[in-house]
């Protein structure tokens, strides 16, 4: 498969009160046509900054190459569509606005709006409504419609289901899956929701403190996490079964500040597997079997079956 988007050695720096800090450190990734890549991390992991850098909303060091016109063929679905949609503009105007922004001619703006609404399962009369009149699920649909206006190849969605009820979450994910197949889209989905991303992504990148610490096919990463952070993250997700209660929280402590990055392996102060080498020498991202990479001196390896 040829890569649709490749990012090499992306670093995003910001000036803070305490000097310059890096929010994203040396991130490389690739996404193939037709693929869904999940980017998972907790608050402060840099996942939102990374996607902003990928589509050029933020200045970054490094190289992004894209098979197409980045600003037109890659579209973003923002996290809170009510806040990201102007309250005084109708849904019809909002979803057709990309045509105006990019100077693309529309024969009939109303017909275009109706077509886009139909694509996301909303009736044509939604074109005349205002954002506050929409439910959470309808607003997400409108956000997807706007992203699809210029027929992008890549859609980047930031927490597409955050704040939605679990019964509505499935509708949005099913819609996105359906559109992906019908329109041949690729997705990058950024989230902290592991239960959700497990169902909808082909490949997963796990971020910690602005670095990708593990990457691989979603099913493999969930079944056999290599990085101790990935393992703790998966184990932290509460299991909705009272017969599978945890005795303890899998991970102690908190994510350190980017202003005070721990030396060497940045996960070592919280890591249950840390050894002296982890505090002395930074691990490199290395191959761990076919199609998987991990940034750890002592990755979890499978015990051979007796």
């Amino acid at each position: 498969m040829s890569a649709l988007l490749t990012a090499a050695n992306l670093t995003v720096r910001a000036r803070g009160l305490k000097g310059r800090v890096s929010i994203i450190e040396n991130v490389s990734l690739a996404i193939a046509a037709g693929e869904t890549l999940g980017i998972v991390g907790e608050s402060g992991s840099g996942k939102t900054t990374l996607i902003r850098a990928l589509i050029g909303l933020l200045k970054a060091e490094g190289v992004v190459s894209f098979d197409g016109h980045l600003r037109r063929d890659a579209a973003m679905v923002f996290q809170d569509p009510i806040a990201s949609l102007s309250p005084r503009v109708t849904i019809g105007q909002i979803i057709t606005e990309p045509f105006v922004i990019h100077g693309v001619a529309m024969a009939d703006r109303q017909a275009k709006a109706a077509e886009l609404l139909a694509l996301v399962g909303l009736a044509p009369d939604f074109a005349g409504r205002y954002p506050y009149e929409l439910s959470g699920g309808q607003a997400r649909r409108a956000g997807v419609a706007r992203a699809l206006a210029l027929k992008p190849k890549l859609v980047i969605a930031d927490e597409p289901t955050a704040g939605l009820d679990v019964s509505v979450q499935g509708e949005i994910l099913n819609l996105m899956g359906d559109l992906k197949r019908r329109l041949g889209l690729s997705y990058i989905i950024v989230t902290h929701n592991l239960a959700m991303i497990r169902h909808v992504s082909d490949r997963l990148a796990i971020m910690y403190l602005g670095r990708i610490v593990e990457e691989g096919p979603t099913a493999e990463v969930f079944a056999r996490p290599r990085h101790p952070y990935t393992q703790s993250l998966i184990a932290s997700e509460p299991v909705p079964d009272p017969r599978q209660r945890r005795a303890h929280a899998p991970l102690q402590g908190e994510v350190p500040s980017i202003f005070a990055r721990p030396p060497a392996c940045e996960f070592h102060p919280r890591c249950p597997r840390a050894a002296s080498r982890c505090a002395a020498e930074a691990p490199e991202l290395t191959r761990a079997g076919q199609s998987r990479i991990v940034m750890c001196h002592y990755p979890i390896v499978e015990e051979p079956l007796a």
Partner: protein
Amino acid sequence: MTLLSVEHLSIDYLTGGAPIHALRDVSIKAEAGEILGIVGESGCGKSTLSLALAGLLPAAARQVGGALRFRDAPLDAARLRGREVAMVFQDPMTAFNPVLTIGRQLMDFGARRGVSRARAVEMLALTGIPSPEERFSAYPHELSGGMRQRVGLAAALMVEPSLLIADEPTTALDVTTEAQIIALFRDLRRDFGGAIIIVTHHLGVVAELCDRVVVMYAGEAVEEGPVDQIFHAPKHPYTRALLACDPARIAKSGGALPVIEGRVPSLAALPPGCSFAPRCPRKTDACETLGAERRVFAGGQSVFCREAT
């Protein structure tokens, strides 16, 4: 011992138009020593219920029926709040004053209730705040979300309440921090003789923490019972559908995710009969004409559905 009993409580919001029936005929009991979960989706009435218990209902709310009782006497929530009844909110950042230190706020609140400084520091330590003496002079923004939730819990428990209400206590937290707060609640309950009520939309939190659970839909308690029974043998069609939708309970299939067809009805214009009937796969004519009926099964599993067996 039953600490709290809510008996046939109905609450409307008066907004100028038709009244919004936020709670209808809700009855629950919280026993000393147990953790009760109240779970449901947006608009199900769980927040109205927790605000009613804490005496924090907005001015537009009217209690149109039923009663709240605490230790076998009418509950005077406004008087008991901060004494016998304490509350923890989703984001304690908004519950704290941003320009006063944590310690000052704990003491402003605690001193009137006879809490010493030493006791306040001890409570911070108990809720897992590292170097609690130093944190006493920190401002709320200097603490992480998880630390603020610990301080909120310390403040709530400082007054030794017998009923603790936690409204979405882990919703604003990252998953690794959420696991720590869940573990903290579990540790605390060992020394806490009172009742804890956890209000949440998160089925995983209920499964991890609660002894009993009440499932709410459109302002009604549609199913209630021991948590194991509700998760493993749900009887109400809504509970079943809700559990089926949770991606954390579905083995990866690659197929479409289950959804609940239709929408939650408007609480200002409820359908006749059972409120879940328009979306229910098992509805009969009687559900729409006669409405739901409460049935009680073994183990105290109570189901508001005439078709439940």
